[in-house]
């Protein structure tokens, strides 16, 4: 290591140590940059793919009010994806290249979006549990060491709060309805509870990136810490809603001051992440088709811009 790189590395580490932010044009270790691009891209892809499970219910929403809410929510997911692609670009990543990597399967997205939305109650449960878990994950990322990522997360977290509340309100409405509607909620909670816990990633012992990401303050808490926080937050919400969570081992542990919960089926997470979930192929195919079907719009816009640029010169 030359004196110069030693000095810049020390400066980088001191900035992080003092809880200051790293900004785009700062020197940073290549591995820090690569880790961030991987994490931000994966996060952006999740937002973009995340439009599909709920988007499927826009045309079938039971009222104009629910339809308008759902449209706004899905539009937010698109926005979140774009904030994040914007942050990734500050690291030198190229947006169209990232889209290519999503479509070709080179980069991943959250396993949760590979599950189907079978009834309208799923829309409520996604808002409550999936967005609730996302908020748990994302609030600490607002203090992530990389400035543009942290700023994007602040924006996203502000908007996620609406997502979670509309979901919970939807479920409260169903719970006040008929037996059949309460059964829809119960069924949806049963299907989404375990996949929501898997959203926090593998257990700490098996998480390959956690230690380095914590040292760099890209991540602020481990997967298991965040998972526990989510369970502790959610149990009283389930009680208020009057719905049971599908885990016989779930109980308050006085000594730990936390809820104990049952063993997660990690083989399922591995299976779904590696492409063998119920909807993996469908999600990617839909994204690829949307991208290809939109090609003429991009070309027309570029042609229009080129024509006007010529006129201005003339």
């Amino acid at each position, binding site marked *: 290591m030359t004196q110069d790189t030693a000095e810049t590395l020390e400066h980088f580490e001191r900035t992080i140590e003092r809880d200051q932010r790293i900004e785009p044009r700062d020197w940073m270790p290549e591995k820090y940059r690569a880790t961030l691009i991987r994490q931000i891209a994966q996060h952006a892809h999740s937002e973009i793919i995340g439009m599909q499970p709920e988007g499927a219910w826009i045309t079938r929403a039971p009222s104009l009010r629910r339809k308008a809410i759902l449209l706004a929510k899905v539009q937010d997911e698109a926005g979140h994806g774009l904030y994040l692609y914007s942050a990734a670009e500050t690291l030198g990543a190229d947006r169209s290249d990232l889209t290519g990597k999503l479509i070709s399967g080179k980069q991943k997205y959250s396993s949760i979006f590979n599950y189907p939305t079978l009834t309208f109650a799923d829309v409520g449960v996604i808002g409550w549990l999936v967005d609730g878990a996302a908020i748990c994950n994302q609030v600490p990322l607002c203090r992530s060491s990389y400035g543009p990522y942290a700023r994007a997360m602040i924006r996203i977290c502000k908007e996620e709060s609406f997502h979670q509340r509309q979901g919970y309100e939807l479920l409260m409405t169903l719970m006040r309805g008929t037996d059949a509607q309460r059964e829809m909620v119960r069924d949806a909670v049963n299907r989404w509870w375990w996949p929501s816990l898997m959203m926090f990633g593998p257990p700490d012992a098996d998480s390959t990136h956690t230690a380095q990401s914590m040292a760099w303050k890209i991540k602020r808490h481990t997967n298991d810490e965040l998972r526990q926080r989510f369970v502790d937050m959610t149990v009283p919400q389930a009680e208020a809603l009057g719905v049971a969570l599908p885990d016989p081992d779930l109980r308050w542990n006085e000594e730990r001051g936390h809820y104990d919960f049952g063993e997660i089926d990690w083989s399922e997470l591995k299976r779904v992440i590696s492409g063998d979930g119920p909807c993996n192929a469908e999600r990617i195919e839909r994204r690829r088709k949307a991208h290809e079907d939109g090609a003429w719009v991009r070309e027309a816009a570029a042609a229009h*811009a080129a024509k006007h640029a010529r006129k201005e010169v003339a």
Partner: protein
Amino acid sequence: MEGNWPLYEVFVRGKRGLNHVHVGSLRAPDAEMALRNARDLYTRRNEGVSIWVVKSEDITASSPDEKDPFFAPSGDKVYRHPTFYEIPENVPHM
């Protein structure tokens, strides 16, 4: 294709009386589209009353490195701050 679209930086004035603040970037075929996309992307909840878009490549920036001597000239001029001057307590409105 969209890889060829230029990158625009987006600045939003939150309300009258405030400066425009940088909020992020987006890609668009031209400035007009950049402005429209910026409205949809960055002001979905009344976050702004005015938007600027600037091609990223048109921005000239200082080096971010703190050790850079660029900002040194302001570092040693404490007399530019009001606290540098000692005025007796009993002098009013100072």
